[in-house]
């Protein structure tokens, strides 16, 4: 039989090792359906690697895909650190995108150095405000934020669809439910010619540094960690628990909102209801894979993005469905959750004769 024995604190290297092992295990497990699809596993994975890293274009595509994942990953990580379970990054992303479009499609005309920050700010603010509701419901009335944030995703998506069919519909859009295009003066500039990679990546990386600094070096970060690790003791020690939750909620929502800004103002140029293929949900996987560390979020987002981009490319080359990417990502999350067990416990196998009674 198996016995679990509690372990001491985990070192950074062990946490990193476990995350990498979980990612590898996910890849190994995904090899099974890949083989069933009639693809040689080696060929499949080499196509995926080529698809994500094989050329400058592939590499920048991967980075472009990682951009929103870093931001939604940070949104989840910072909230989960305070044990505020924000499952609503998807909705906050759309709210951010909607606000960016509202500000950036001609309502205000200004030079880029004014308009771009305005668009970014509007998106962050919208995302934060969306998260404010569930946070207040939690702190005031004890409403479970998992339920409220999750359900808000659908409400916001339907709201976006309504806006795109109605007041915000592009009159020049030939009847498609899409917004007017973002003004050139409001669009995030590209980082490289003829590539899709844009300044959203810089925003994401700076945000990651910012969250790292916030958690590590500031009072607010101290309070977030204290509330997340032991809210009762934090309250007893005079830390403003409610205010901390509200701050974390605003920050988390704002980060997810920024992801929406990047997608709409950096990549697509206009808003449609299929802007995000679930970046908000994938952000949760990113955060878990990263062990909720801001630096880890960047690495985990790159990993997940290369799986997505690589699988797309493999799918085009072989005809195997790119659902495989979703499968690997889901496996990675499961493997990380299981690996948490290895971080907390030492697992020992002991002789089975001690447990005869239980087996009878």
């Amino acid at each position, binding site marked *: 039989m198996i016995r679990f*024995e509690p372990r*001491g*604190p985990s070192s950074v290297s062990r946490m990193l090792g476990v995350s990498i092992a979980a990612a590898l295990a996910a890849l190994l497990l995904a090899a099974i359906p890949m083989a069933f699809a009639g693809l040689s596993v080696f060929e499949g994975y080499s196509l995926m690697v080529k698809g994500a890293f094989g050329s400058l274009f592939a590499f920048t595509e991967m980075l472009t895909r990682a951009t929103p994942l870093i931001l939604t990953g940070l949104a989840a990580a910072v909230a989960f650190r305070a044990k505020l379970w924000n499952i609503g990054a998807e909705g906050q992303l759309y709210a951010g995108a909607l606000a960016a479009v509202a500000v950036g499609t001609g309502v205000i005309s200004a030079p880029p150095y004014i308009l771009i920050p305005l668009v970014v700010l509007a998106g962050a603010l919208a995302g934060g405000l969306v998260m404010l509701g569930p946070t207040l419901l939690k702190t005031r009335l004890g409403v479970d934020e998992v339920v409220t944030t999750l359900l808000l995703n659908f409400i916001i998506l339907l709201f976006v669809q309504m806006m795109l069919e109605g007041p915000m519909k592009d009159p020049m859009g030939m009847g498609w439910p899409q917004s007017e295009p973002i003004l050139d003066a409001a669009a995030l500039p590209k980082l490289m010619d003829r590539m899709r990679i844009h300044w959203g990546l810089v925003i994401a990386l700076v945000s990651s540094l910012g969250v790292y600094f916030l958690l590590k*070096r*500031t*009072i*607010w*970060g*101290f*309070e977030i*960690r*204290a509330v997340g*690790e*032991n809210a*009762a*003791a*934090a*309250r*007893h*020690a*005079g*830390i*403003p628990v409610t205010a901390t939750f509200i701050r974390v909620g605003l920050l988390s929502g704002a980060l997810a909102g920024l992801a929406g800004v990047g997608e709409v103002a950096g990549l697509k140029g206009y808003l449609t209801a299929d802007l995000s293929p679930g970046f908000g949900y994938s952000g949760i996987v990113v955060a878990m894979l990263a062990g909720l560390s801001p630096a880890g979020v960047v690495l985990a987002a790159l990993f997940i993005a290369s799986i997505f981009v690589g699988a797309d490319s493999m799918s085009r080359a072989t005809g195997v469905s790119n659902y495989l990417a979703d499968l690997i990502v889901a496996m990675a999350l499961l493997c990380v959750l299981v690996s948490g067990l290895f971080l907390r416990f030492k697992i020992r196998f*002991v002789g089975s004769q*001690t*447990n*005869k*009674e*239980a087996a009878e």
Partner: protein
Amino acid sequence: MAGLAQDAGVVLRLDGITKRFGALTANGDVSLDLKRGEILALLGENGAGKTTLMNILFGHYVADEGRVMVSPDGTGLSELEPGSPHAALQAGIGMVHQHFTLAENLSALDNILLGTERLAALSSSRAPARRKLEELMARSGLTVSLDARISQLSVGEKQRVEILKALYRDARVLVLDEPTAVLTPQESDTLFATLKKLSDDGLGIIFISHKLAEVLASSHRVAVLRGGRKVADLPTAECDRRKLAELMVGHAIVETMRSPGTPGAPLFVLEKASAGQGRDALREVDLTLKSGEILGIAGVSGNGQTTLARVISGLEPLSSGSMTLEGKGVGQTSARTMIDSGLARIPEDRHHDGIVGAMSVSENLAIEAIRKPENQRLGLLRFSAMRERARNLIKAYDIRCQSEDSPARLLSGGNIQKIVLARTLETVPKVVLAAQPSRGLDVGATSDVHKRLLAARDRGAGVILISEDLDELMRLSDRIAVIHRGHLSEAEASETLDRGSLGLRMAGHSTEDAA
């Protein structure tokens, strides 16, 4: 090894039990015999390995080395299958845990029968079971109302249900883990009278304790554990208080003695203060704490002391009444305002409310003052200043830890309490609230806590000491009030009180009855 002749009457034998948890040896080569009709006290400090040993006996843990022998039918000893509570029950071992294992929403009878009936039986026949139990109750004096729901029973009654549960399963050995922790002195006396009667009927009893008085009064034999090893095993008649204490701690101990305090002006006042609801509510409590005194609050747990502590800690608002510090109202409840007005609070559950286990010792030392200029500048933490202050406090309060950066949860209970003491007393508070400050601490750490509280009093602070330990209250307090069902009695000078009258009041008798 023991010959056959010595086995006579032995109902239980632990033979060379060793149990390790990682680097920690919880039990090292412990051997123990229990005879029929004997009451054995297992004495030891917190962390001495008492509970681990009993958990091995009952099959919750498997020993790394050694074996448990039982005599199921009163004849020869045979080895008990390790790791199986079921086998332990079959062999006639009954265990009463410190935290009861009763289903609150079922009746006492249901709880006793739970697990003894066959799953496949179509109907359960209660009449024979009830007859057997009534006979048991009549013989042992353990009376409870079998049809009452557990949630309606008092703590003492719940304990009786637990014991009946073991007896109903024909236990020949009964193990009780810290049975008096939750009882009033009177209830404890009743319990020990019952145990005496049961042992006269042939039951072998082991009770775990760290209270010297009850061990001396109620056991036939004492086994002392220290650091996981058995350091003594001798007839109680050959022991005295001092000898047992020294065996338990490993060195001679000096108990903290209080010199009379010099109380000053009233400092902290509660007037007709009510808060909370249900069993633990506070009802129209009047309390006046003077500077330079320790005011003890005695009571059986669950009578409102938790709510009282939460109110004074700023965690729970008063529903009516007032709270003033130096004449100024501090009714506005938040922990922050309490800290800022000069209240030091030592929480009852130090792991749950006292520290953030995942954060470092230095962060835990700074947590109450994290927004003070010494810990931050423009919102940025001043780590080196925090660390340096932590190093000084670690030295001054003798906090045993690897470094100021180790996570606080790795520290022992005593050292965690020292973190709480260091960060609260360092601010030179006007009022100190100490809720169960020595609960679960060993003798050394307890005496340290006591010295700190007395030192705070001597420099003029008012100390409110909430405790369930009468010895601690009598030793430290200048005045003692008793809390019962949320009502607080008038505080009286501790010299005029004795354990008996306090115990009666804790059980709810009025002052006149007690006098």
